[in-house]
């Protein structure tokens, strides 16, 4: 029965066109993501894409390992030496690029030092240039002390429990950091939210007619007059919606991830995300962050689909149902700009597709004396309704009358 429901969805010309659009979009986004990786060769010329990733990977992996004091000092020494080179001091951009080309292998480490030696909330790309080899050993401690200083300024209104939570998270982060080439993961995580949003909207297109099409096609009378039309057949529609959502999501995300990681490099999965999100209090690796982003995206997509199917079952209108994922995932971000209540806006359903942004954010919630980050709240907050709405969806559709 589920097979036929899925066949109904994918036999429609409209959905075939949407599937084609999805495939083309995936290819375009994959190409754009791959071109995110940039490499500057010894002549100061920049290249992007697969070749750039290959060169960058070779250079960066020469620095692979735990970044202890000696590695930080070495990075400072090399950085200073390059800064004092003829190319770096030249006024010609091409020459400066040649100098930069020599820094690429440890540029992430230099950036991490720059982040460590500026106040919390500030950014100075050149700060590492003035850090000495003696100072640099305190980089990890600076991360915590900078946070502490920032919290003491009272710029943000955190409760004592929230402050303790943030400090605790910073202290719990394992140091020294493990380093590897992570550009493949960084490029993947940066663009995956776009892929998930497109996926959610197209999946919405697929499932929006599962319930209402029976009415639109006037096939409802026969459907509901059959033996299983008000029980098992309704359940099979719900299952088909779930399967289409889950399989389309998994297949597309897997394909996109595989294309990007296989072409840009899978290294760096076990590195902490603080390499590119220095202030994040989420102590997770790139791979764990990837899983969190996927989970958030999946729950968001599932929530939008569940509401869309419910509307489809209740209103019998495919057009209205198609609009639901769009409203939930595209209109809410605009509402966030109008409503100036970050505590509420960061729990809007569109945020499930923005876990990458949330990972950088310091949004906290205190519930029953327990402090937790937005991710710990938002995923269960939408997963529970996804499950709870299924019996309602079943009840609404099975009671439908043909007037």
């Amino acid at each position, binding site marked *: *029965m589920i097979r*036929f429901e899925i*066949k*109904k969805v994918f*036999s*429609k*010309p409209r959905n075939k066109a949407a599937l084609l659009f999805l495939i083309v979009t995936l290819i375009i986004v994959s190409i754009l993501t791959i071109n995110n990786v940039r490499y500057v060769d010894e002549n100061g010329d920049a290249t992007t894409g697969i070749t750039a990733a290959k060169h960058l990977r070779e250079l960066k992996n020469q620095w692979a390992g735990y970044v202890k004091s000696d590695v930080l000092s070495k990075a400072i020494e090399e950085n200073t030496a390059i800064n004092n080179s003829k190319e770096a001091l030249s006024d010609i951009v091409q020459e400066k690029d040649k100098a930069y080309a020599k820094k690429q292998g440890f540029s992430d480490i230099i950036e991490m030092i720059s982040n460590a030696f500026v106040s919390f909330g500030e950014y100075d790309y050149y700060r590492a240039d003035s850090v000495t080899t003696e100072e640099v050993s305190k980089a990890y401690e600076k991360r915590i002390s900078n946070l502490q200083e920032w919290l003491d300024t009272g710029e943000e209104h955190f409760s004592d429990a929230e402050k303790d939570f943030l400090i605790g998270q910073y202290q719990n982060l394992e140091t020294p950091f493990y380093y590897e080439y992570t550009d493949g993961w960084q490029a993947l995580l940066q663009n995956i939210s776009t892929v998930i949003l497109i996926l959610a909207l197209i999946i919405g297109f697929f499932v929006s007619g599962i319930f209402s099409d*029976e009415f639109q*096609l*006037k*096939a*409802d*009378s*026969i*459907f*509901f*007059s*059959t*033996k*299983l*039309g*008000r*029980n*098992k*057949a309704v359940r099979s529609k719900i299952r088909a919606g779930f399967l289409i959502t889950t399989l389309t999501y998994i297949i597309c995300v897997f394909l996109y991830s595989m294309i990007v990681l296989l072409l840009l490099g899978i290294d760096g999965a076990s590195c902490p995300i603080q390499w590119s999100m220095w202030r994040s209090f989420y102590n997770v690796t790139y791979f764990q962050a990837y899983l969190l982003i996927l989970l958030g995206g999946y729950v968001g997509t599932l929530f939008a689909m569940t509401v869309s199917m419910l509307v489809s079952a209740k209103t019998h209108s495919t057009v209205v149902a198609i609009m639901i994922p769009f409203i939930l995932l595209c209109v809410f971000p605009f509402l966030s700009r109008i409503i100036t209540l970050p505590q509420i806006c960061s729990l809007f359903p569109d945020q499930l597709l923005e876990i990458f942004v949330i990972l950088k954010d310091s949004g906290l919630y205190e519930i029953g004396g327990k402090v937790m980050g937005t991710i710990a709240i938002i995923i269960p907050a939408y997963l529970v309704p996804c499950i709870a709405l299924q019996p309602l969806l079943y009840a609404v559709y099975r009671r439908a*009358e*043909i*007037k």
Partner: protein
Amino acid sequence: MKLELSDLTKSFGDFTAVDHMNLTMTNGVYGLLGVNGAGKTTLMRMLCTLLRPTSGHITCNGKDIFKMDGEYRNLLGYLPQEFGFYPDFTVQDYLLYIATIKGIRPAVAKKRVKELISQVGLTKSSNKKMRKLSGGMKRRAGIAQAMLNNPHILILDEPTAGLDPNERIRFRNLISELSEERLVLLSTHIVSDIEYIANEIWLMSDGKIVRKGTSDEIINSMPEKVWKCFVEHSLVSAIMKRYKVSNMKSEPQGVALRIISSEKPFPEAVWVEPSLEDVFLYYFGEKVGE
């Protein structure tokens, strides 16, 4: 098989589509005849559990059909007036899907679908998409889906609507062929369809059965007589105001009329045997063409 309607009423706001109806049906072909808006479709939808009555009950062998739920629908085959389908399914896929939601096991369904496709004459079109079928072929696919579970109760709402005369005759014969040992309720406003195949005819108006019986009983129930006459063109308008005219055929020399009247309308009028169409006009005349 016994279906009983007790004090069955269905209202939509102030409008009562089916009005305190009491009926009993056993095996046989029942023809439901009435003008558009008489309540035929509403009655059939209630019999198919698509609509819940406002009051009253429908029982099948003594059990409430809404409480029987799937058990009742397992006995049911239904071809609605507006036969909707999945346009991008082939005939075979469409029937296999309906067989699945009728709870027929896949192996049995395949065999049954093949048999029915052959019986309704769609073998050559079985791999055609539903949207590419002609009106008559779609109706045949419709009757095939209704027959998939070999139903004890077959409900056909305007099954011949929109068909050309050849298709209609063919379809009528098909229904006759399928109606053995079942309870068949057939609704139409095409009088000849019912006349040929129904064992019992119900005339429905304003949500009520105003008369029921065999074709002969219904015809004999008409208290007025039917007259045939030939008049000049100029007299037609006045005659139509005064009498119920069940048929009118314009010819170069005048107009041949079929008039329903208890009195002889003209000295030259000839009394003729009434038909079911005359009876239909007699009972629903003022509403025809509304």
